């Protein structure tokens, strides 16, 4: 349960840090780091406008999306403290839970009957589909390396490996960070600040959402960031006691947020029609990890 609380805490300031970093690099002061949460609260208090075309799907989809993220967060452990949900093969459950959320966010976009939202939905489905193998190869390799198949056991025993496991950790960080960007539709994949609907992915899907629903979706994005941040933090946590792991956790979350801020400030977006290939190329990095694991295990002899 402790990881759940920590992730919720981290989600409060994560996006704030990203925005602050982006402001500073572009020479502005920027809003306070709690501003995104204040925005969400403001959205919660607002009324809503629904499109006449929409049906019950549009009404329930944001709730399901949010619920799926909450469930997924419950799977994440903190070092040797298991998450609320923990069993052998729980990362499969994790990935498929996020799939449920995505399924509903896609069909709710299609529910509006808007050509732009359909476009965004199509891209979201395609990109997240290509990110799928990368995650599974990564987790499969880690399972092979550690001999365990649940998040908590994998992360707890990852620490005891040789030096090469830290190199694998760095590669895994890269993969997870990129998956975060795909899942949250951030910079190299999608530009959340773009001003043309034709070039958006995630933002265009939620054009018709408003009020409480929009608040749920926006806050869901914050939660997802913190969730992947927690996964990355777990790679380097091992089985230290709590008074060490909690600072590590927040340290890595902050570092990750700053890194995303810098990345978003200094990179341009990938070409939209080549995005799928870029994302699929992520699987090759995962395969590199897999090869590394084979090397560690001495399978090449």
């Amino acid at each position: 349960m402790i990881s759940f609380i920590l992730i919720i805490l981290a989600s409060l300031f994560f996006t704030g840090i990203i925005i602050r970093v982006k402001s500073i690099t572009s020479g502005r002061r920027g809003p306070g780091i709690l501003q995104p949460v204040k925005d969400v609260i403001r959205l919660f208090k607002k009324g809503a406008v629904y499109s006449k075309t929409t049906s019950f799907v549009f009404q329930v989809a944001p709730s399901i999306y949010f619920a799926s993220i909450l469930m997924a967060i419950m799977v994440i452990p903190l070092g040797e403290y298991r998450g609320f949900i923990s069993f052998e093969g729980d990362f499969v459950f994790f990935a498929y839970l996020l799939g449920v959320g995505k399924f509903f966010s896609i069909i709710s976009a299609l529910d509006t009957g808007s050509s732009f939202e359909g476009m965004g939905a199509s891209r979201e489905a395609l990109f997240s589909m290509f990110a799928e193998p990368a995650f599974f190869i990564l987790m499969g390799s880690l399972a092979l390396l550690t001999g365990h198949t649940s998040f908590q056991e994998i992360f707890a025993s990852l620490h005891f490996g040789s030096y090469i496991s830290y190199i694998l950790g760095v590669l895994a960080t890269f993969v997870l960070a990129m998956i975060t960007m795909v899942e949250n539709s951030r910079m190299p994949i999608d530009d959340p600040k773009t001003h043309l609907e034709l070039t958006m992915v995630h933002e265009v899907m939620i054009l018709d959402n408003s009020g409480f629903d929009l608040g749920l979706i926006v806050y869901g994005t914050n939660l997802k960031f913190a969730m992947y941040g927690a996964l990355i933090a777990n790679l380097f946590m091992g089985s230290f006691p709590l008074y060490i792991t909690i600072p590590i956790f927040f340290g890595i979350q902050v570092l990750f947020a700053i890194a995303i801020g810098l990345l978003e400030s200094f990179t341009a977006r990938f070409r939209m029609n080549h995005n799928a290939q870029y994302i699929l190329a992520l699987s090759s990095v995962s395969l590199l990890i897999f090869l590394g694991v084979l090397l560690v295990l001495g399978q090449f002899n």
Partner: protein
Amino acid sequence: MTDSLLLSFALLLPVTGMIAIPFLPSSIRANVNFIFVVLIAAITSIPAVKALTGDTVDVVINGTLVFGNITFHIDSLSSWFILIINLTCIHGAFYGIGYMKSYKGRRTDLSMHWILFLLFQSSMLWVCMMQNGLAFLVVWELMSLSSFLLVIFDHSNKATLQAGINYLVQMHIGVLFLAAAFIWVYFSEGSFEFSSIEKFFFSNQNLWLFLLFFAGFGIKAGFIPLHSWLPQAHPAAPSHISGIMSGVIVKLGIYGIFRIIFFLKQDYTVIGEIIITLSVLTCLYGILNAAVHRDVKKMLAYCTIENIGIIGIGIGLGLLGMGNGNTLLAVLGFAGALLHTLNHSLYKSLLFFNAGSVYQQTHTRDMEKLGGLVNTMPQTALFFLIGGMAIGGLPPFNGFVSEFLLYSGLLLGIKSTGITLITLLIFSLAGLALAGGISMLTFTKSFGTIFLGAPRTHLQQQPREVAWDMRLPQYLVVIIMLSISLFPRFYFSIVNNIVLEFIPVAPGGRAPVPFPLLNGISAIGKFAMLFMVLLVLIYLIRKSISRKHPEATGPTWGCGYIVPTSKMQYTGKSYSKSLGKLLSFLILEKKKYKEISANEIFPAERRHSSHYNDFFVTRIFDGIVDRLLYSLNYFQFIQNGKIQMYILYGIFFIVLIFLGTIFKFI
């Protein structure tokens, strides 16, 4: 009641039904058919349940002239399939009552349809019981023929007939392989009985005979490249028949493969590797094609191919487990495959029924012509949504349970030794995940295009929600699906027992499934429940909060454009276009379009058409068939239409046989 009495009832009942149906008034034929289906199901389920709890049922008819000993054998494997057949047939017959009402003018056709339905169900059941190769082929053939005749219900339609004949021919190619395999066993062991297959495997190399059987059963199951009948036959058939064909007939191919696998004595690993490679490819190929097709039933047919691939991955894993002596892996693989067989028969029949409901109301299977049906047919939409989520393996539905077993199996498998094996399995893992992703794309596309948004074309008749008798069987299917996802442990224990009965267990008794894994399986059910509770909770919070705030409705935000029409919606085609374009080497798109030339000042109206072709059919089979036809042209002189010549051929062969016996050639 004794077993033989039960079995003779299982033979007598369908015959009675088939004779009775034509004499009944046409208004109650469908209902009577349903009653007979239920009765047959009940009669055959009794021994099946008995076999599942441990008592196998054996009835032997000794010393028949042609067949030799015919053994009716119901063990737990047959029982599992018998129960699946019965379940799907009951739903199908029920749904059929409502679905066929719109054809009530065609009385003779309908009467034939219901007669064949009984034959179809019974022949499938017999397939699961027969343990004599020759008798097996006969009932197998009965099954193919009855399903062929059911497929061409709409026989005045040229496309339907073509699809039907294609199905017939391909099924017979399958029978050819099976017959060859049985004859091989016969020559080697002197008997058509299934037990002689086991004897054959004891003393000979296993691989080649298995591959022969695999080819025969694989055509039925739809493994690539033997799948091409599926996407043609399923759209042609009436929906409840497509539901049963996709839900069960295809699975009988799987049954056959299972049956043969449990006779195997060696070569497990190599056969496992072949099957798992083929299965991953089948899985990806099926779902890729499903993603781009616009005919909803064709999409579902390709999706069936994907699921056969998933089942195949399980079978392959199980074989690898047997090869390594890793009982747990064998259990996980085979149990996953068996459970997925049940799951798929449930949600695929649900989806086909659904497609039938939509077809009945709109008279089109083309998704691009539909849209916005969620407002007029909300329950049908909900069923499709549930089916689509389940088939993508998304929790909290049943598809996830079997996929979880397979994932667990794959993760267990990669711990085995051998770099080839590990690499193969990690690619299978990625392939399964990728297929899950594409299946999400496929079903968001289909659901979105058919049910969401605004209607794309003006339909002649305003669609309405279908009648209760068509919805009720779908509710039943959904309830069974939920029972699997909420109580996975129970279903797992059944398939686990089946598997343990067949795989060689290491000394020391039955290998138990370790506790953490069982824990994981029941955890899925528990957390599926938690997920649903959480979801309802959040929805209620949302409702209570948003009640306090003003709500308004308006048109969809058109990004500044003020006169949008429903034709400007994103189409299913454009939704999956980028995927199709990326993989254009595999998904062949055929476009017909005339470019506007530079000197055409006032362009006339023009058409653009695009459809997708099957890679194997276009690139491989069409060429072979063309060349075959070309070379067979040279033999046309034999079939010259002169009756004298035909009589001469007869005499010629009689003389040949006569000479043959005289000189002892035969």
